[in-house]
C-alpha cells in the first residue's frame, strides 16, 4: 500500500518499472489486464524461420514476435510485440506474417462488429537481410493491414527503445493512427551506421550519440510532429498513454493523410544548409 507520505508517493520516479528492460513477452503482458494475456503462435508452436538455420544463424522458437490477445482496461486488444534482442527485431517471412495476420484477425473482428484494438510494440531495424525480398514483401503486407484496420479502430504504435524503429517498419510506424515514444527511442528510415556508410562521416558521425538522438531521438521526433505522445520509460506511463490513444476519435486525420501540412513543412527546409535540432523544431512550428 502507498500513502501520501510513503517513499513511493514522494518519489514515484524512483519506483517505476522500466519498460525498456522488459523482453517482448513481458512488455505485452505488462500492458494487458491481469490474467487476460493469451498468446497466439507461442514458442511451443515452433513457427521458426526456415531461412536462418540454412545460413548458419540460430533461430528463435517464436521468430522474435509475440502475438497476444487479451484486454487493456477491459477493451479487447491484440498486442504485437517485436523482440529487439533477437536479430535486432528484424522482420523475416515468419515474424512479419505473424504481425500481418494478427492485424487481419483484428480487422475481421471489427468487421463482424466486435471492437478489437491493436497495439504494436515496435523494436526493429526493419527487414531481416537474411530473408531479403520475403521480408520486404511481408512489410508491405503489414502496411496494408494497418491501413485497413485503422479505419475501424485506432492502431497504436509504441517505440520504447533501445533498438528503435527503422527501415520499412519506420514507414509502418508512420501509418499507425497514434504513435507513442520515450526519449530513449529512435525513429528513422536509415540507421546511423547506414547513413555514415552511404554519405560519409562528414555527413553523419554514427559514434556521436548527441547527434543521433537530436536527429532521430524520441524527443526530437515528438517536437517535429512524428510522435503523438512522449512518455517516460515506465510501464504505468506507457499503459496510460495507450489508453489515451484508444480514446482518439476515428475521424481524426491520420498523419499520412496530412499531405499539405507535410509539404508545407518540407517547403521550408533548405537542403543546402546544415540543419540542427532546434532549427528543425522551429521549421515544424511554423508549418
Amino acid at each position: 500500500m502507498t500513502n501520501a507520505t510513503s517513499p513511493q508517493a514522494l518519489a514515484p520516479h524512483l519506483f517505476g518499472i522500466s519498460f525498456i528492460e522488459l523482453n517482448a513477452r513481458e512488455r505485452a503482458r505488462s500492458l494487458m489486464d491481469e490474467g487476460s494475456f493469451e498468446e497466439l503462435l507461442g514458442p511451443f508452436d515452433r513457427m521458426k524461420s526456415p531461412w536462418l538455420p540454412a545460413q548458419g544463424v540460430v533461430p528463435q522458437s517464436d521468430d522474435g514476435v509475440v502475438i497476444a490477445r487479451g484486454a487493456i482496461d477491459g477493451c479487447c486488444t491484440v498486442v504485437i510485440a517485436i523482440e529487439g534482442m533477437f536479430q535486432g527485431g528484424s522482420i523475416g517471412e515468419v515474424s512479419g506474417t505473424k504481425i500481418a495476420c494478427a492485424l487481419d484477425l483484428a480487422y475481421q473482428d471489427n468487421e463482424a462488429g466486435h471492437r478489437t484494438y491493436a497495439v504494436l510494440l515496435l523494436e526493429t531495424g526493419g527487414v531481416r537481410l537474411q530473408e531479403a525480398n520475403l521480408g520486404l514483401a511481408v512489410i508491405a503486407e503489414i502496411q496494408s493491414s494497418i491501413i485497413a484496420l485503422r479505419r475501424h479502430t485506432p492502431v497504436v504504435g509504441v517505440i520504447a527503445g533501445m533498438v528503435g524503429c527503422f527501415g520499412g517498419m519506420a514507414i509502418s510506424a508512420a501509418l499507425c493512427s497514434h504513435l507513442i515514444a520515450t526519449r530513449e527511442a529512435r525513429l528513422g528510415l536509415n540507421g546511423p551506421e547506414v547513413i555514415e556508410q552511404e554519405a560519409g562521416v562528414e555527413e553523419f558521425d554514427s559514434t556521436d550519440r548527441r547527434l543521433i538522438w537530436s536527429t532521430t531521438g524520441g524527443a526530437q521526433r515528438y517536437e517535429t510532429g512524428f510522435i503523438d505522445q512522449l512518455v517516460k520509460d515506465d510501464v504505468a506511463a506507457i499503459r496510460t498513454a495507450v489508453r489515451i490513444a484508444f480514446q482518439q476519435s476515428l475521424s481524426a486525420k491520420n498523419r499520412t493523410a496530412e499531405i499539405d501540412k507535410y509539404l508545407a513543412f518540407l517547403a521550408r527546409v533548405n537542403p543546402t544548409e546544415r540543419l540542427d535540432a532546434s532549427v528543425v523544431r522551429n521549421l515544424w512550428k511554423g508549418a
Partner: protein
Amino acid sequence: MNFEYPATNAVTQRAHVGVVGSGDLEVLLEPSPRDFASVQVCTSVDGYGTVWKAVLDRFFAKYSIKSRIEINDFGATPGMVALRLEQALERSKT
C-alpha cells in the same frame, strides 16, 4: 547436438524462458512420459561440446526430470546456461 539422461521425476508444466540474443539463450522445457531427459542444443558457437556436456551433466545430476528440452543459444556462458535451465524448471512449477 543431442544429449540424453535417464530420469525419474515428473514435470507438470511446460516452460519457456530467455531470448536468442547476444550472450543469452532460450530454453523450451516440456514434460515427457518417458524415463529420460532429452536435450537438443542449437548454438551459434562451434567446438564447445564438452562444456555443454559438463553443464548438462551437472544440471541433471541435481534435477532428474523426465523432460524434453530444446535450447537455442546465442553465445551464452556456461553460468548463463545453468541459470536459464534452473529458471525454466522453476517456472514449470508455478
